C-alpha cells in the first residue's frame, strides 16, 4: 500500500509538472464553457420557466464533466500515446492502477472550477434557489469518474484519430441531443428509448436531483446505472493497461 501511495503521489506530481503550462488554459476553457452553457442557452429559450431554469443550471456541471471526462481526457491520453509518454510511464515500476488514478485525479480536479462557476452563474442568472442534498458531491464525483473511465476506455482501445472523432461526436450529442439541459419527454419516443440505455440521462438526473432534491429524495436507479457504466469503463481501461500484446 505504501508503494502504491508513493507511486501515485509521484506520478501525480509528474502529471502536474507536465501539464503545468496547459492547466490554467484547460481550467479557463472549462469555466467559459460552463458559464457559456448557462448564458447561451438562456438566449435560445427566451422565456424560461422554473423547470427550464432548473435543467439548465444543473445541466451545466454535468455537460462540463462530460466534456472533461470524455473529450479532454481521451485527447490527453491520445497525446500521451503519440509522444511516447504513455509507454514511458508503463515501463516504470509502478502499480498499473496508480497510473490510472494519477491521471484521473488531475482531470477531475481540473473540472472543479468549471462546475462551481457554472452553478454560481446559474443561481445568479435565473434567480433560483437550489436545495443541495448530501448526495451532491458523491453524484458529481460518480459522474466525473464514469466520464473519465469511459474516456480512458475509448482512448486506450481506439487510435488517436478515432478517439478525436468520437470525442467530437460526444460534444455535439451531449449538448444538442441529450436530455441533460432539457426534460427527456421533449425528445421523440424512439430517441428516449436510446437514452434509456446511454449514461447521459442518468448523469443529468443524478446531478439534478442532488442539487435540487425532490420531495422523495433522489432516485437510486441513475446512481446504479452510472456505477455499472463506471465499472465497465474501469474494467476496459484496466485491461488495456495490463495488456501485453
Amino acid at each position: 500500500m505504501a508503494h502504491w501511495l508513493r507511486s501515485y503521489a509521484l506520478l501525480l506530481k509528474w502529471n502536474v509538472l507536465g501539464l503545468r503550462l496547459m492547466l490554467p488554459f484547460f481550467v479557463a476553457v472549462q469555466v467559459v464553457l460552463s458559464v457559456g452553457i448557462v448564458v447561451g442557452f438562456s438566449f435560445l429559450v427566451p422565456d424560461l420557466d422554473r423547470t427550464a431554469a432548473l435543467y439548465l443550471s444543473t445541466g451545466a456541471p454535468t455537460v462540463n464533466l462530460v466534456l472533461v471526462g470524455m473529450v479532454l481526457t481521451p485527447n490527453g491520453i491520445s497525446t500521451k500515446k503519440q509522444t511516447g509518454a504513455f509507454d514511458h510511464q508503463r515501463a516504470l515500476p509502478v502499480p498499473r492502477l496508480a497510473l490510472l488514478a494519477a491521471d484521473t485525479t488531475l482531470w477531475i480536479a481540473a473540472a472543479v472550477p468549471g462546475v462551481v462557476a457554472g452553478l454560481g452563474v446559474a443561481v445568479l442568472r435565473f434567480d433560483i434557489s437550489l436545495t443541495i442534498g448530501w448526495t451532491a458531491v458523491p453524484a458529481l464525483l460518480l459522474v466525473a469518474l464514469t466520464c473519465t473511465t469511459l474516456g480512458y476506455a475509448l482512448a486506450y482501445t481506439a487510435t488517436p484519430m478515432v478517439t478525436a472523432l468520437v470525442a467530437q461526436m460526444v460534444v455535439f450529442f451531449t449538448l444538442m441531443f441529450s436530455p441533460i439541459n432539457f426534460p427527456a419527454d421533449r425528445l421523440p419516443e424512439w430517441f428516449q428509448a436510446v437514452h434509456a440505455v446511454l449514461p447521459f440521462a442518468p448523469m443529468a438526473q443524478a446531478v439534478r436531483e442532488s442539487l435540487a432534491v425532490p420531495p422523495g429524495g433522489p432516485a437510486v436507479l441513475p446512481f446504479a446505472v452510472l456505477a455499472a457504466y463506471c465499472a465497465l469503463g474501469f474494467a476496459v481501461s484496466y485491461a488495456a493497461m495490463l495488456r501485453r500484446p
Partner: protein
Amino acid sequence: MAVLEVDHLVKRYRRGPRANDGVTLRAEEGEVLGLLGHNGAGKTTLINQVVGLARPTSGTIRLAGGDPVADPASARAACALMPQSQVPLDGITPRQAVETTARIRGAPRQRARARTGDLLAALDIEEWADTAGEHLSGGVRRLTAFAMTAAEPGRLVIMDEPTNDVDPVRRRLLWAQVRALAAGGRAVLLVTHNVAEAERSADRLAVMDSGRVVAEGTPAGLRAGVAGDLRLDLLMADADAPEVAFAGAGRPHRVGRRIIVPLPADAADAALACAQRLRAAGRIEEFALTPVSLEDVYIGLVGGGSEEGHHGALAA
C-alpha cells in the same frame, strides 16, 4: 552471474512474421552487452518482452532471478529502460525529471537528489538543469533521459540508441557513465545501429538479423571469425569495372564506384601489386589496403539485399 538470460525466445505478432525467432542470449553482471541489428531485426520486440510490455509466444526469460512473463511488475523493478523515442519532458526540467524518476524507482529523497546532481554534473548538462523540457535541445533531452534511466537503475539497464542527437564530447561522458554502471555490478544491454560505438563501448556483442542472433562474441572475436584479415578498397576511374585478380583474393563486391576485396594478411603483397598495376593502367583512381573493421564483419553477417543499400544505410 547472469542478470538476464533469454532462451529460445519466439515472438509472433498476430498477422505478422516472427519478430523474434528463437533468440538466446545472456547478459552478465558488470558487463556491457551490445545488441546490433538493422531496423526490424527484432531488437525492440526483445526489449519489450524483457520489461514486461509484451508477452512471448514461446521461450523463457529470466531477469535477476525472476520471470518477466509471469511477473512483469518485478521485471520493471529490476530493470531500467531508456527507450529509443524521446522521453516527453514538456513542462519538466531535467533536475525534476531525473529526481522524480529516481524516487519513482524507489530511491529515498536524499539519495535521489544527490544522484541527480552527480549525474547532471557528470554529463555536463548542469547549465540546463532547471530549464523546462520544451526549451531543451534534442541532445540535452536525450542526456536527461539517460540520467533518468541511470539514476536508480536496478540490476539491468537497457538503453536503446542512447547517443542519438548527443554531441561528440558529451557522448564520451555518457559512455563513461555507462561503464560506471557496469563497474557498479549492473548488466547493461546497449541497443544500437552504430557499429563503431558498439565496438568501443561493449564488452560483448550480439548481432541480430531477421529475429535471430546470428553472431555473438567480443568485438575482437567477431573480427577474427571473418574470412580475410584485410580489405582492398579501389575507386574506379570510370563506369567500367576492372577485373581484380591476385592470389588469395576473396569475392569482390561493388559499392557505387568502389570495389572492395577481402584478403588474408599474406596476400597483401599481391594485392598491392595488383592495385598499382590497375592504377598505372588508369583503371582506378586510388586504392587503400586496410584491416577489416567490425562494420565489415557486421555487413557480412547481416548482408543480403544490395550491398549498396547496406553501405548507404551505415553511412547515413
